[in-house]
């Protein structure tokens, strides 16, 4: 008689910016900043490879590539077998990422969706057709260049107010942690959050960086203190630009990790229009 397999475990959690400039026009950043960011991405790539994950829960926003104001969920969980990214040849050129299909972990996606409902979260179900933009294509070009890891994409609304509260995002991450432990198919799971930090998209302030906000956010992330992480109001986040609302994805990762993070890089890169950071949970 074989021994029953134990529940799955989150073996790593990481967070990183996804500015199109990181892959689209890296050379426009100052050399030191570029090296710091690319070095941190390389370190995370190495750590993920070492962790040998069965699946990656990839948490990000999506920039009206799939959803519209005719249907904009606060949270969505995708359960597809695979995903196209970048969504169009034009976007592929813009991001400098070849268009291809990324593998999905449909079974884990279905389990996470079902677990969310049981935990009284009500995400949208995306059974197929989800296409990626910079949200996943930019960081994964560095972190999983051969697209080896099966993904469960989780989308958080960070692009149109009103956004889910910081606490709701953190709690969504805690829910994911519990759900991973209640299945056995994917034993080793990595959570990867992408987005932020401060930036303005399509606005007059584009190119500004709110370094004070970024450093405060990262200090809270390092502490891992849920009370500090969930204390952000929508207005406080808005002061760092409409793009800063993507930190919600980092809050999901913080809830899933249930511990503090180490900041591997932080660079305010105006040329990439973003306060750019890469961080790893102390798991």
């Amino acid at each position, binding site marked *: 008689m074989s021994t029953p397999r134990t529940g799955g475990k989150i073996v790593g959690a990481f967070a990183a910016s996804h500015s199109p400039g990181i892959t689209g026009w890296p050379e426009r950043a100052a050399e030191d900043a570029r090296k710091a960011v690319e070095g941190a991405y390389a370190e995370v790539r190495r750590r993920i490879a070492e962790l040998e994950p069965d699946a990656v829960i990839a948490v990000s926003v999506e*920039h*009206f*590539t799939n959803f*519209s*104001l*005719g249907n904009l969920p606060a949270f969505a969980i995708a359960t597809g077998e695979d995903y196209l990214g970048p969504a169009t040849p034009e976007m592929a050129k813009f991001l400098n990422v070849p268009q291809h299909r990324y593998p999905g972990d449909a079974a884990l996606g279905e389990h996470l969706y079902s677990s969310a409902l049981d935990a009284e979260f009500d995400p949208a179900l995306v059974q197929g057709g989800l296409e990626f933009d910079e949200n996943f294509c930019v960081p994964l070009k560095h972190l999983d260049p051969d697209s080896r890891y099966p993904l469960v994409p989780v989308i958080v609304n960070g*692009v*149109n107010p009103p956004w889910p509260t910081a606490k709701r995002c953190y709690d969504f991450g805690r829910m994911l942690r519990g759900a991973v432990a209640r299945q056995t198919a994917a034993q080793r799971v990595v959570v990867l959050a992408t987005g932020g930090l401060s930036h303005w*998209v*399509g*606005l*007059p302030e*584009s190119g500004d960086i709110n370094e004070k906000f970024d450093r405060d956010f990262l200090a809270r992330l390092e502490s891992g203190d849920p009370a500090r992480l969930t204390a952000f109001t929508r207005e406080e986040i808005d002061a760092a630009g*409409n793009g800063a609302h993507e930190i919600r994805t980092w809050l999901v990762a913080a809830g899933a990790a249930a511990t503090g993070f180490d900041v591997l890089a932080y660079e305010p890169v105006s040329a990439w229009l973003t306060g750019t950071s890469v961080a790893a949970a102390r798991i």
Partner: protein
Amino acid sequence: MSLYEVHKLLWDVRRVRDVTERYRSDPDAVLDEYGVEGDFRTWMKDLDFKSLYEHDVNPYLLYFCAIQLEVDRADYYARIRGVKAR
């Protein structure tokens, strides 16, 4: 007319190739089709992104639509900053 018609048009210009092409060649016909009227119609035709943003149009949708219409990024930002005349 509600703001939704403008948002739907902006999304479709970005994501539905047929709408993009028809908007480029005959914007009035497409604006009619989407029921975009009044000041919003004028601002759309003038690419007056500043006025559209100041009247609650989502800046992501504005920016992506502009890119799809091959408005240069520098030109877009000049317009939304109001430093470029309509």
